[in-house]
C-alpha cells in the first residue's frame, strides 16, 4: 500500500482521460473533439516535462513534433510494401519518430542549452525555422511538397484498415501517449531528476554550486520531452492526417499553443497541462463553432488576461489551496 501511495496523483489524471475517452466514444459526433482535447493535453504534458520543470522556454518545440511526424512518414513510405510487417509497421514508425526527435534534441540540447533565457528562446526558434528551410532548400524528404502516405497506408492495411487507423487508432495512440507522459512526469518529479530540476529552475547558479550537474538533468528533461513530442507528431499528424508538409509541421503557433496550455494549467504541475489542454481545446473548439473565423481574435485577449491575472495557472492556484487537506496527495 505504501508503495502504491506515491502513484496516487496519477489517479485523477487517468480518471480524467478515461472519462474523456468514454465521452468521446459514447456521444455521437464527440470523438473528434475528445481526440482534440487529448491531443492538446498530451502536447501540454510533453512540453511541461521540459518547460515546466526547467523554466527554459523552447520556442522551437514544434520542430520535434515535426521530426516525429517525418519519422513515421518515412518509415511507412519505405516499408509499406512488406506485407508481413502489418501492425509492426506502426510500431517501427513510433520508434523511428522517437529516435528522430530524440536525436535532434541531443544535437540542439548540446548546443543551445548553454544559453539562457531569451537567448535560448531565440536559438530554438532559429533551429526550428532553419531546419524547415533546410528541408525545403535541399529538397530532402520531399522538400516543400512534403510526404503523402494515404495511398501507401491503403496498400498496407486495406481501405478499411487505413481509414480506421486514421480516424480511430491514431487518436487512441494520442491517449496512450498522454498517459505515458503523465507517468514519466510523475516519476521525474519524485526522483532525483525532479529535485535537481526544481533547484536549477529556481536558481541555476546556486544549483550548480551545490554540486548538481545541471547540464545532465536539463538534457534528460529536454530529450524526454522531445521524444514525447515526436510520438505525438507521429500519431496526431502523420497517422491521422496521412501527410506531412513542412510549412504545417514546423508552424510556430503549435509551440505557442503548447506554452499557453502549460501556463493556463500551471507550469511544473502534473495535473496542470491536462486541465489546461482540455480547457484550451474546449475554448478553441467552442469559439470556432460559435464565432467561426474569429476564435483567435477572441482568444488573444483571453491569453493576455490570464498571463496578467493568474500567472501560476489554475492548478498552481489549486495546489496552494489544498495544502494540508486530504486532497494534497492527489494534486501535485
Amino acid at each position: 500500500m505504501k508503495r502504491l501511495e506515491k502513484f496516487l496523483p496519477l489517479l485523477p489524471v487517468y480518471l480524467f482521460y478515461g472519462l474523456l475517452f468514454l465521452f468521446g466514444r459514447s456521444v455521437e459526433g464527440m470523438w473528434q473533439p475528445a481526440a482534440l482535447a487529448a491531443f492538446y493535453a498530451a502536447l501540454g504534458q510533453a512540453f511541461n516535462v521540459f518547460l515546466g520543470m526547467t523554466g527554459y522556454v523552447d520556442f522551437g518545440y514544434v520542430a520535434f513534433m515535426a521530426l516525429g511526424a517525418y519519422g513515421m512518414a518515412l518509415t511507412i513510405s519505405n516499408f509499406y510494401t512488406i506485407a508481413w510487417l502489418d501492425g509492426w509497421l506502426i510500431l517501427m514508425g513510433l520508434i523511428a519518430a522517437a529516435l528522430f526527435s530524440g536525436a535532434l534534441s541531443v544535437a540542439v540540447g548540446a548546443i543551445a542549452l548553454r544559453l539562457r533565457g531569451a537567448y535560448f528562446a531565440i536559438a530554438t526558434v532559429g533551429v526550428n525555422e532553419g531546419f524547415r528551410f533546410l528541408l525545403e532548400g535541399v529538397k530532402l524528404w520531399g522538400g516543400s511538397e512534403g510526404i503523402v502516405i494515404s495511398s501507401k497506408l491503403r496498400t498496407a492495411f486495406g481501405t478499411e484498415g487505413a481509414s480506421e487507423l486514421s480516424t480511430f487508432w491514431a487518436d487512441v495512440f494520442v491517449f496512450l501517449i498522454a498517459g505515458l507522459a503523465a507517468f514519466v512526469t510523475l516519476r521525474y518529479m519524485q526522483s532525483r531528476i525532479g529535485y535537481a530540476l526544481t533547484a536549477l529552475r529556481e536558481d541555476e547558479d546556486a544549483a550548480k554550486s551545490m554540486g548538481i550537474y545541471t547540464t545532465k538533468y536539463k538534457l534528460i528533461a529536454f530529450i524526454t520531452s522531445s521524444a514525447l513530442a515526436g510520438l505525438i507528431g507521429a500519431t496526431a499528424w502523420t497517422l491521422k492526417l496521412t501527410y506531412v508538409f513542412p510549412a504545417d509541421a514546423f508552424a510556430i503557433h503549435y509551440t505557442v499553443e503548447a506554452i499557453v496550455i502549460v501556463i493556463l494549467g500551471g507550469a511544473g504541475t502534473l495535473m496542470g497541462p491536462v486541465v489546461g489542454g482540455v480547457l484550451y481545446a474546449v475554448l478553441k473548439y467552442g469559439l470556432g463553432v460559435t464565432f467561426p473565423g474569429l476564435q483567435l481574435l477572441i482568444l488573444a485577449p483571453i491569453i493576455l488576461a490570464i498571463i496578467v491575472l493568474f500567472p501560476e495557472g489554475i492548478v498552481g492556484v489549486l495546489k496552494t489551496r489544498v495544502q494540508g487537506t486530504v486532497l494534497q496527495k492527489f494534486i501535485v
Partner: protein
Amino acid sequence: MILGSVYGLMTMGLSLIFGVLKIVNVGHGAFMMVGAYIAYWMFHLLGLSPIISIPIALAAGMALGYFFFQIVIAKLTTAAELTTLLATFAMGILLEESARFLWGPDYRGFSWNVGRLMLPPVAIIPLGKIYALISSSIVALLLYLWFKKGRSGSAVRAVMEDREGARVCGINVGRIYALSFSVGIGLTVLSGNLLTLFVPVGINPYMGGVYTLKAFVIAVLGGLSSPWGAFFAGFLFGLIENGSYTIFGLVPGLEPFSMTQFFAFFLLLMILLWKPTGLFGTK
C-alpha cells in the same frame, strides 16, 4: 543593400525593447504589418506618399506601444521569459486578427511612381528606395542624437546598463520602460511603413512573421541589446541575404530562397554560440 537600412530600423525597435525591458517582442512583425497598412491607407485614401506618413506611423506606433505597455507589459517587467514571450505573441495575434477582421485577408498593394535614379553603368534604382534609405538614416541619426545628448535618452541608456543603479540615481525606471516600449514600437511601425517603399505589394494581415524572424537574426548579429549594432547589422544582413541568394542560385538542385533563409538561421545559431554579444558587441 538599401533594404538593409529598413532592416536596421526595424531591428532597432526590437533591440531597444530588449535592451531596456529584457523582453523579446515576438509580435514584432505584426507591428510592422500595422505600419504597412498605415502606408497603404494613407496612400489609398488620402493620396499621401509613404514619406509623409512617416511621422503618422511613428505617432500611431508610439500610441499603440503605450497602450499595450499600460495594459499588459507594465505588470510583467519582472516576470519570467515564458510569460513575456507569450504576452508579446498574443499581442501579435491580436493585431493580426484585428487587421483581418477590419480589412480582410486579401493581399493589397499600391504603386507609387516617383521615377528612377539612373546610374547607367551600375544600376537603375527606383527613387522610392533612395527616399527610404535617406529617411531611415535620418530617423536613425535622430535617435542616436536623442540617445547620446537628450536627457531622457541618457536615462534610457542608464536603465539599459543597470536597472537598480539607475533607480538609485533617481531615474523613474517605470517611466523609462514606458518610454522605451513606446519608442520601440513606434520605430517598428515606422519601419513597416518604409518597407512598403521596397515591397509595395503583398500587404496582408499575416505578412509580419517573416520579418519577426529576420529581425531576430539581425538583432543577434548586432548584439541583442544594442540598437546601434542593430542598425549596422541590418545593412550587413541585407548584403548577406542578397549575396547568398545569388550564390545558392548557382548550385543546381537547390531552392535558393529557402537556402538563404536556412543560411540566415545557421548564422544566428553560430553567433549565439560564439559571440552572444553580437559582432559589434563590446563585452
